[in-house]
């Protein structure tokens, strides 16, 4: 079974280490979520696994192979990323954008074939973007672009999909649709999926296992019930919240209370 394993990994940029000595494993078919405040290093982990940055210490293994030692092309056949704020070429059509997902399979010289087009069309169907195929990226909304980058990741036919804040630009309908899609792919295709999320409630609803980051280290790890609790949120986010089980599935649901309502209550 394919596994993704981070072993004592530290990651960072030229002068600053962002992630300190973290170790975890992700398994096929399991939705692994990474949560934590702004700047806690969520996106840096995604960049490390996709080898945009190289660990300053420790190793990232995919199926026993060291990610930093693989060729970019071979890595891109296995690992696809849906980045948070991607630059997308405005003049490309949506179809051309998703077709870029075929890059690692084509190499420098091969021309794409009908089977590549079929893969692209299917990826666009799954993400509900097929109707946009001939539209130019410049004309599309943030949510549509987000779904197209997911389609592009699917067109890579990866074993691992890394989603960096996939719901950030989406309205509530597409938030649910996107995470349903991620969950289905993960379950049915046995993909390894690592998703960073801001929204604790979405994280609780969709992820089988959560890693809570605090200043670049793992604060706690486990099922949503184990990780999301009042004390942990206070420690990591510095926020006072109330947590109740969700009425439909008992998963922990975080409620915030603005300052004025607590003031009113105490009167």
């Amino acid at each position, binding site marked *: 079974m394919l596994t993704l394993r981070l072993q004592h990994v530290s990651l960072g940029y030229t002068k600053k280490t962002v992630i300190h000595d973290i170790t975890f494993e992700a398994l096929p078919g399991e939705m692994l979520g990474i949560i934590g405040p702004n700047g806690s290093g969520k996106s840096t982990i995604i960049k490390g696994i996709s080898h945009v940055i190289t660990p300053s210490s420790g190793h990232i293994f995919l199926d026993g192979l060291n990610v930093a030692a693989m060729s*970019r*092309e071979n890595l891109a056949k296995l690992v696809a990323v849906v980045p948070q704020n991607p630059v997308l070429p405005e003049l490309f059509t949506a179809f051309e954008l998703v077709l870029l997902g075929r*890059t690692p399979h084509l190499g*420098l010289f091969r021309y794409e074939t009908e089977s590549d087009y079929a893969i692209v069309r*299917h990826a666009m169907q799954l993400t509900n973007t097929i109707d946009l195929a001939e539209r*130019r990226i410049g004309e599309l909304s943030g949510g549509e672009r987000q779904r197209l980058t997911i389609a592009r990741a699917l067109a890579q036919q990866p074993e691992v999909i890394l989603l960096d804040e996939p719901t950030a630009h989406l309205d509530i309908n597409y938030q649910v649709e996107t995470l349903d899609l991620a969950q289905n792919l993960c379950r049915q295709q046995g993909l390894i999926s690592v998703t960073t999320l801001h929204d604790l409630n979405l994280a609780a609803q969709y992820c089988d296992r959560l890693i809570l980051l605090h200043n670049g280290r793992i604060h706690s790890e486990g099922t949503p019930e184990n990780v999301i609790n009042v004390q942990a949120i206070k420690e990591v986010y510095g926020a006072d919240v109330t947590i109740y089980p969700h009425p439909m599935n008992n998963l922990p649901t975080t409620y915030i209370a603005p300052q004025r309502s607590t003031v009113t209550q105490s009167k």
Partner: protein
Amino acid sequence: MALEVIRGNAITKGAVNYASLHRSRIYAIAGLALLLLCVITITIAIGSSDIPLTTLFNAILSKIPFLDIEQTWTSTIETIIFQIRLPRLILAGLVGAALAVAGTSYQGLFRNPLADPYLIGVAQGAALGAVTGFLLPVAWHIASIPLLSFLGALVAVGIVYLIAKVGKTLPMTTLILAGVALGAFLSAITYYLMIASGDKLHGIIAWLLGTFALTSWWQVAVVTPYIIVGIVIIWLHARPLNVMQLDEDQAQQLGINVERVKLILLIAATLITAAAVSFCGIIGFVGIIVPHAVRLIWGPDHRFLLPLATLSGAIFLILADAAARTVLAPTEIPIGVITAFVGAPFFLYLLRQKKRAIF
């Protein structure tokens, strides 16, 4: 193993007929190649002494071995065709192709519509080298000007590269800024030398504006290898250039070795630009406008954009050179004047036609 769902299923809804779109672009390439041949033929024929097309065809056919064609034309015409006009317009075509391809790859590489082949110091380095060449004894000019211009361009870009490099990576914004700053520095020296050059000033300005007068075969022979090899290398990187229209992180995550592609394209584009300007001067406008015009008409896919720009650049500069030597004959107009004077209105017209994002 993964994503079987995605494999195979034929879906008709929203199916884009890319095969036909690609076919139409391939027809465009073939059409432009044909147009290039026509333009070459016509521009050989016109000039201070017009040559009838039948004479021209016979003269060209007579050069093919084993084809026995009686020479019915004078040796003057023979010289005009083969020693004066043909090398000149072949050089113009090569230079136009080189500048257009270099401009396309710089615009793609920097993801910046303002990029042109002279962006990171090639022009200023070449100008300083050429002006230095002019200041040497006149007898050396024929070799000193192109050689020093070529070396000046390469050294300037080399310095810019070394300044901008951070460890193993090359931040593109730093590269542009370093190019602009070093360019200003080199221009300061060039301007001073020009003021101090006395009676050579006219020749220097003519070179800076570009000219193909006095082109002969040896010049074509010298620049051809650089330009052909450079253009082929850039063509081969059309797919990575497409992917690099995303940001660098995404390009890496799609399997592109970004730093290697940047380096290869920078070297190739710099070499062909340096070779192109070394004999004929800093011809402006071709390298920025031809790529945009081609992109406006045929779209942003570099696999078609690069060959289409190659052909369009060649056609554009051959025509511009024909205008330069015929419009005010016997006086030659500097070619840089023609490219901007005719090219700019045409480009503005295209901009008006397509009222959408152009890059």
